[in-house]
């Protein structure tokens, strides 16, 4: 998606129709569009004009989203007059030009003091392909979602001061992020293919059942009944997961309330920190267990080889003692002498002569040449194994130590968490003790749900095994009739295709995660000055680890670092999409790998070092970058880094009805532009003007 322009009418601060604001950027070197404005001038409104038009959604912190129509337009309208507000966004995607308009209307009916909104917002989407014909698209939401998934939009259109939300995402947000990212990269096609082929396989099995012999029928019926049972259990697993999520949300809400209570704020903050540490130690324990299992399964055998090595050494030693090693002469050499009938000393080796018998006696000794060769080779292998033994032992030792340290720390953390719980439950203040008791009950419910989740998942795995077993039996039970064999072959082909698509999807997901982590780490290290390394957890949680003085542990990242990590993550997705598109033309991949990044105040809470670093790298993070900045955010490091890369620049002039406000100006390219001006009437509003570079 490449944004071409935006135009607004009566949207929030913007009275009447604005000009068409061009956003198109021609090259990667001039890919930045900047909107300058003071606080309250409508920068966030403009960002939300994009999200509203495209997704009918708003960024966090966008206040009064139900009041979209400009107040001046509403007040100046006559009773009975309908006032409309709209946002029109033009963009390009995959060789198509799109015009999207979302509109809303309100009316002040005669005799009624309040404005009445006329229906919901309406969206229309037209597109024009290579043939130059315009088409109207129905189901606008779906169409936009295929271009840039709705659940990913907040990572491309965001309030810079809140972007760290990616790092602090809740579990369900993390899952949604993972799913949306996969969808953006085109894996949805594989998921659908797998699901639909499975349904086709079932239908074909029914056909087979209709023509199959009694044994095939019986096996298929049994399998179908197990599959039905499995589906019920899978539904139950989903329900449990939803319950857990709902309980977690309630628990977080209680934590929030406790955090807001002055008396216990510090205790709750300590608990937050302990829980983060607990998560970190648990993750470390899991990782250590995996490493240990892998080490034992790949190198563990070496620890049992000592007796065999001793035996080998003693065999070789006794051969040496007997003078049979080194062999010194090769059997082939002796055979050649005997064949030629002449020794190297020119003696005749004709049969019956003593010299021939002497040379033949060497053959027995020469036979050990093979043994010698093997002994040398095995000696080398044994030396390598002996090298592995101490490494394996020390590796196991190190991992065991890490495990026990993590366990001890976990025990300490859990003890402290218990103490906090007890303290709060016994608080003399009813509100606090009440909240904590409620929290404990929720935690117990979560634990119970987790146990049930584990049990049901185990039953699903058992069923999977039984189903696979039945499938094997059915495949072995060869149909006799031709029709039956064909029906059978179709079932097999559908299943084979389904399994292969699943395997491709799993391999792609694995590869894609691995690369994504590498990219995030690379981009993060380019921007950040810290030694922290980003990690993507299995649940799509993003966090920073630091490993000074030992094992990597999660760090409590500052707001600035979290923002940089989030930016790195978004940039990595864009980079990944670009790569997948270029390499996988023959596989379903992303339609297009061009995405914009639209950011409100991305430098707001950064110190000058990070401000400089982010400004330097922002243009490289995406194909098109739109920035909404105050004068303070623009001046200095950001201006120096970006001014050569700006394709279009706009100034939002805010007209205030107040007399006591000093006018504000900004100088761009040697020209002065008003940021704040006195309104000629009683209304506040904002006008947008383009900066034309000399």
């Amino acid at each position, binding site marked *: 998606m490449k944004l071409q322009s935006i135009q607004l009418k009566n949207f929030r601060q913007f009275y009447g129709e604005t000009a068409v604001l061009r956003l198109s950027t021609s090259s990667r070197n001039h890919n930045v569009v900047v909107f300058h404005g003071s606080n309250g001038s409508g920068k966030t409104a403009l960002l939300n004009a994009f999200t509203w038009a495209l997704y009918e959604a708003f960024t966090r912190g966008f206040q009064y989203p139900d009041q979209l129509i400009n107040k001046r337009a509403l007040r100046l309208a006559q009773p009975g007059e309908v006032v409309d507000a709209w946002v029109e966004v033009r963009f390009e995607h995959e060789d198509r030009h799109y015009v999207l308009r979302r509109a809303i209307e309100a009316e002040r009916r005669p005799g009624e003091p309040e404005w009445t909104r006329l229906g919901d917002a309406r969206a229309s989407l037209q597109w024009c392909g290579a043939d130059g014909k315009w088409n109207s698209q129905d189901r606008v939401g779906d169409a936009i979602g295929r271009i840039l998934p709705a659940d990913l939009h907040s990572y491309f259109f965001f309030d810079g001061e809140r972007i760290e939300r990616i790092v602090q995402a809740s579990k369900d947000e993390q899952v949604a992020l993972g799913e949306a990212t996969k969808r953006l990269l085109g894996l*949805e096609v594989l998921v659908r293919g797998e699901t639909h082929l499975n349904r*086709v396989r079932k239908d074909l099995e029914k056909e087979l059942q209709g023509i199959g012999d009694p044994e095939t029928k019986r096996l298929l019926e049994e399998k179908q009944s197990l599959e039905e049972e499995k589906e019920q259990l899978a539904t139950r697993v989903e329900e449990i997961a939803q319950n857990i999520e709902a309980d977690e949300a309630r628990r977080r809400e209680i934590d929030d309330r406790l955090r807001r209570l002055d008396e216990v704020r510090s205790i709750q903050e300590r608990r937050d920190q302990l829980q983060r540490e607990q998560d970190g130690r648990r993750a470390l324990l899991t990782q250590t267990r995996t490493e240990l299992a892998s080490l034992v399964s790949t190198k563990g055998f070496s620890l049992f080889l000592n007796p065999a090595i001793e035996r080998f050494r003693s065999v070789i030693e006794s051969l040496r003692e007997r003078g049979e090693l080194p062999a010194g002469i090769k059997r082939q050499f002796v055979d050649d002498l005997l064949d030629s009938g002449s020794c190297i000393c020119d003696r005749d080796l004709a049969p019956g002569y003593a010299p021939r018998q002497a040379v033949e006696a060497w053959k027995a000794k020469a036979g050990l040449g093979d043994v010698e060769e093997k002994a040398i080779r095995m000696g080398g292998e044994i030396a390598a194994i002996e090298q592995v033994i101490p490494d394996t032992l020390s590796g196991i030792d190190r991992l065991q130590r890490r495990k026990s340290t993590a366990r001890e720390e976990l025990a300490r953390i859990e003890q402290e968490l218990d103490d906090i719980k007890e303290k709060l439950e016994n608080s003399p203040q009813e509100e606090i003790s009440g909240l904590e008791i409620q929290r404990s009950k929720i935690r117990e419910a979560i634990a119970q749900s987790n146990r049930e989740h584990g049990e049901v998942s185990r039953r699903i795995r058992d069923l999977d095994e039984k189903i696979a077993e039945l499938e094997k039996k059915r495949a072995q039970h060869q149909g006799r009739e031709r029709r039956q064999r064909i029906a059978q072959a179709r079932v097999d082909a559908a299943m084979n295709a389904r399994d292969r698509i699943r395997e491709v999807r799993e391999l792609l997901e694995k590869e894609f995660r691995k690369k994504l982590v590498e990219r995030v780490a690379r981009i993060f290290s380019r921007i950040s000055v810290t030694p922290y390394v980003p990690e993507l957890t299995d649940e799509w949680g993003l966090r920073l680890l630091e490993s000074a003085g030992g094992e990597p542990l999660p760090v409590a990242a500052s707001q600035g670092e979290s923002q940089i990590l989030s930016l790195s993550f978004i940039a990595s997705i864009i980079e990944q999409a670009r790569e997948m598109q270029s390499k996988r033309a023959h596989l*379903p991949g992303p339609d297009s790998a061009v995405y914009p990044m639209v950011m409100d105040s991305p430098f707001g809470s950064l110190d000058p070092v990070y401000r400089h670093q982010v400004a330097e790298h922002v243009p490289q993070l995406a194909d098109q970058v739109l920035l909404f900045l105050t004068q303070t955010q623009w001046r200095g490091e950001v201006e120096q880094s970006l001014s050569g890369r700006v394709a279009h620049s706009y100034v939002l002039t805010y007209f205030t009805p107040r007399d006591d406000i000093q006018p504000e100006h900004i100088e761009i390219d040697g020209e002065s532009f008003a940021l704040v001006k006195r309104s000629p009437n009683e209304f506040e509003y904002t006008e947008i003007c383009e900066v034309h570079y000399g």
Partner: protein
Amino acid sequence: MVSDSPRRDPLAPINEAPEHVRRIIQEVLKLERDRLYQQRPHIIDDITRMVKDAVGEDSTL
């Protein structure tokens, strides 16, 4: 340090598939892609036909 298992080409399962299975996969994925714009595409009959065409009545079994 324990080394990772060797990386497998993600497309290998498709490339290594028997001819008729590969044909089904390619046709199904193309259809899925074409219908991605639909929330719930009705394509079961089309996919069934693709499987039946790939393993036709005259298949040598």
